[in-house]
Every structure is written in structure tokens, then in C-alpha cells.
């Protein structure tokens, strides 16, 4: 910690007692953390200002939409399918023991649409796209390509960050719906075809498990997740340390920070959305 943390002690390093050094290290880390949060807030503000003042060119937006959306689709669909099937495998024994096999669909679909679909799609996006964004932008930083953009009168945040942010927040809802859908299909396939649960009863109970509000809350949360992935990954790329090690570190920290923030924001939003839902408890079934 002492290497990265700013020194906040006025006592020369060689005269510090272990306790002063400890306080200095932790104090420095806290100061570094506050500075990084402030820096990221300014970065986000700059990005939002550009987004609402002048949109980037269609060419740069379309490339990012393709990379974030089209190329993520297969992996998100595959992950969703397997998670739906795993949920069926894990829940079946207990539901079967109490004779509620046909209610498996309600549990699988509810869990997928409310929680697993959005979080899984976001995790896959953070791993596949977030890491790549940080690595690409980090390499551009290290090889002075970002400086070159600035030198040529282009704003790097407008040119590089805004299209990535737009791609993430606009396409993650579609990826979430795909993860939800494929998870439901996977769960249905395993429950009905492999485990032999009655098709009509499974579908009938599935309808009870998912309301319109559940679907809305999952998609609503995913927009925040997309924003987190884009901002954290681009920020890490822009502040990449020199060398191959720096680029690798930027890519890794982009994924780790995005993932932790996604889970933290998921908890917060779930509490808020559940509070809102409790005010209107008579939600209609969606399926």
C-alpha cells in the first residue's frame, strides 16, 4: 500500500515509528480512494456533458454497437441457457421431495428475470467487453494515441468514451432479455424434457412466477450495470500505467471493480425497487 498511497505525514520516512507509518499508509490509501472517486466523477460528468451536447459520428457508434451487442449475444445466450438448466438441476430434488415439481418453472423464471438474467448479462459484458475496452484504451494511452487525438483537436472522451457508454447502456437491456429468454428455455428444456415434469403444469405455474414489474426491474437495473461497465472500464483504460503490465492491470481491475460495483448497485436498486413494489403489490403476471 505504501507504494501507491500518497504520503500524508510531514515526518520524514526514516523517522517514522511503525504506528505513524501504519497511519500514514492507511491515511494515504483513503486519500487516494477519495481522489479516485472524485476523478471518476469528473470523468463521468465530462462524458455526460459531451453526450448531451454533441453525439459522436455514426461510424464510431455503429462499430461499438456491433462489438458490444452483436458479438456478446452468443456468449450471453449460452450462459443464460446453462444457468436456466443448472437452476432446474439444483431445485428439482427439493421440490420433488415435497411434490411441487410443477412449480419449478415459477422459481427458475422468477430468479432469472429478477436477478440472474441482468447480473449474468452484466458479468459477461464486464468480462468480454469491459476488459477489452480497458485494454484497448490502455494501449492507446501507453502508445500516445490518446494524446494524438487531443493534439489533433478531438476530445478523447467524446470520441472514445461516449460511443462505448451508449453501446453499453442501450444494448445491455437487449442482452438481458436474451439471457432471461434463453434461461427460461434452458430451464423448461431440462425440467420438461429431461426431468419429465408435466408441460402444461410447468407453464401454468411459470406464469405466476414472473410479473411485468419483475421484468421491468431486471431491465431497469441492467441499464445501470451497463453504465458502470462502460465508465469503470474506460476510466481504467484512460488511467493505465505504462507498459504491458499496466495494460494487463487496467483490464483486470476494470473487470473486478465493475463486478463489485454491479453487485453493490444491484443490492441497492433491489431494495429501492422492492420498496416501490410493496406500494403497488397487485402486479399482474407477465408470462
Amino acid at each position, binding site marked *: 500500500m505504501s507504494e501507491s498511497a500518497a504520503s500524508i505525514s510531514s515526518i520524514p520516512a526514516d523517522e517514522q515509528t511503525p504506528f505513524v507509518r501504519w497511519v500514514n499508509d492507511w491515511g494515504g490509501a483513503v486519500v487516494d480512494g477519495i481522489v479516485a472517486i472524485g476523478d471518476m466523477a469528473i470523468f463521468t460528468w465530462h462524458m455526460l456533458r459531451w453526450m448531451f451536447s454533441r453525439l459522436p459520428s455514426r461510424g464510431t457508434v455503429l462499430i461499438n454497437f456491433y462489438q458490444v451487442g452483436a458479438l456478446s449475444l452468443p456468449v450471453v445466450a449460452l450462459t443464460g441457457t446453462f444457468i436456466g438448466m443448472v437452476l432446474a438441476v439444483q431445485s428439482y430434488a427439493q421440490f420433488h421431495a415435497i411434490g411441487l415439481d410443477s412449480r419449478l418453472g415459477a422459481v427458475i423464471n422468477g430468479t432469472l428475470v429478477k436477478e440472474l438474467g441482468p447480473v449474468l448479462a452484466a458479468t459477461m459484458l464486464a468480462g468480454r467487453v469491459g476488459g477489452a475496452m480497458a485494454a484497448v484504451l490502455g494501449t492507446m494511452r501507453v502508445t*500516445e*494515441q490518446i494524446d494524438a487525438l487531443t493534439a*489533433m483537436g478531438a*476530445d478523447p472522451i467524446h470520441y472514445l468514451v461516449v460511443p462505448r457508454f451508449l453501446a453499453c447502456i442501450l444494448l445491455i437491456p437487449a442482452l438481458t432479455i436474451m439471457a432471461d429468454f434463453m434461461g427460461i428455455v434452458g430451464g423448461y428444456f431440462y425440467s420438461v424434457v429431461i426431468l419429465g415434469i408435466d408441460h402444461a403444469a410447468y407453464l401454468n405455474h411459470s406464469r405466476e412466477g414472473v410479473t411485468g414489474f419483475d421484468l421491468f426491474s431486471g431491465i431497469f437495473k441492467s441499464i445501470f450495470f451497463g453504465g458502470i461497465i462502460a465508465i469503470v472500464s474506460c476510466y481504467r483504460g484512460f488511467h493505465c500505467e505504462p507498459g504491458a503490465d499496466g495494460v494487463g492491470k487496467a483490464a483486470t481491475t476494470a473487470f473486478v471493480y465493475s463486478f463489485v460495483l454491479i453487485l453493490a448497485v444491484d443490492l441497492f436498486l433491489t431494495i429501492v425497487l422492492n420498496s416501490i413494489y410493496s406500494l403497488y403489490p397487485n402486479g399482474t403476471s407477465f408470462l
Partner: protein
Amino acid sequence: MNAATETNDEGTDISDLNRPLIEARNVSVQFDTQKILSNINVTIQRGQTVAVIGESGCGKTVFMKTLIGLICPTAGHILLDGIDLNAMDQEQITLARRRFGFVFQNAALFDSMSIFDNVAFPLRQIKKISDQETSERVLQHLAEVGLPKNVTRKRPAELSGGMRKRVGLARALILNPEVLVYDEPTTGLDPIMSDVINELILETRRRYPVTSVVVTHDMRTARKVADRVLMFYPRTRLLDEEAQILFDGSPSELENAEDRRVRQFVRGEAGERLNELAQQAAF
């Protein structure tokens, strides 16, 4: 190349050719606790070609990036045509940067774009030029730096170091800048290609009335292209009262400079640096 016929905020005519084009006044740059530049005062007149020399880590590149506003000075001011870069808003500084062409050390070409798109990039940022004119200007500037038409579809990774530098120069020239800034233009190139780049710098100056700042530690380049040489010295190895610019004069005066450190650098003699490095290693 762009005629300076604008007026500044005070309504003063900035086309006055006697006024320095670029001026660094008491410029200091510090990263965390590390002082890179301290109290730098430099004036660059229109049409001059200034070579900035000095050993690695002396702050040449930082100085150059400070000149075009890529690095904000910790103290002091950079004046472009008498107007302080610090006093400019974002739009003004963007316009000011378009008066510069910047050739980066490793060319800094965009990996994801073809050579054509790299060279056309500054033009497309302005968005007032047709595709046909863009194409004509890109091919013209590539031809000026001796690159054939068939490189336009290639990616930067497919070109040699010398070709990438020449593409970087074509990209820097495409907006017809008033000031060309070269960062280590010959570093990493073989002697022949280094001389090709030197000749291109001279040819560019002959063709356009451009002011040039060449950051280099290649003395052959400094002697060949510059009409004025500044030598920087690492701040950490100077006494507090010493100025960081050890030499400011013509290339012909370099050999007989009063300061022993300048003569040593010009001749490429390690001198007492070997002892200093040994002492640093001992710590």
C-alpha cells in the same frame, strides 16, 4: 500556413510578425513530488526551427507537450501569439491545437484505422471537406513524404518504423499547421532512414513557412535541421540556482559551448556520469 489575421480578446492584431509565435514564461511542471521543468523561459519566433536536445529524462517531451497544452504547467504560462493557453476555454484551446502539427515519437497512429483513415482523421474532425477533397489531400501528403498510393489500405502494424514516422508526418501536415512539433523523429531508425526523415523536415520547411520544434537527442538531426538549439538538463542534477536550459544558440556554437556538460553531450562522452550512475547504484 494559415494566415494569422485574427484578433485576440483585446482586439489586438495578432498578425504582427515581430511578436513571438510561442512563448514559455517561467514554466514549471511537477508530477507529484517530482520536478520535471522549473522556470523555463523560451521564446520561439515565426519560421524558426528549434531543436530541443538533452539526455533522456531531462523533460524535453514534457516541455513539448506543455507547449501544445497536452500537459498543464504547474506554474507559469504558455503564450501562443500572445494569448495565454491557460486563459483559453475548451473550444479556443481546440482551435489553438489545430495550428499545431504533432509528430509523435512512435508515430501514435491509430491501430484500428487504415493509413488513409489515419491521415484523413484531422480533416474529418473539421467536417467541412468533401470525401473527394479529403482523398486528394491524403494522397498528396502521402506522396510528399514519399509513400506510394498502395499503403493507404494497410494498417499501421503492417508498416516499418520509418514508414510509420512518415505517415505520422503526413498526418501532422494535413491541416497545414503553423507549427510542427517533432518528438524524437529519428529515434529507432537506421542511419539512412534517419537522414530521410531529416531531409523531409528540411523539405517541409522549404515548402511551407512553418515554425518547427524538434525534440531529439540525435545530434546529427539537431545540426542538420535546426537554426537554433536549446539544451535541457535534468532538474534533479542541477543546483537550485542553476537554469535548466544549459545552452541556447546556433548549432555551430554547440561544439565550443562554455558549459562542459553541453560539450560532453554533443560529443557523446559519458564523463563523470559513469561515476554518478555507480554511486546511484550503490544506494
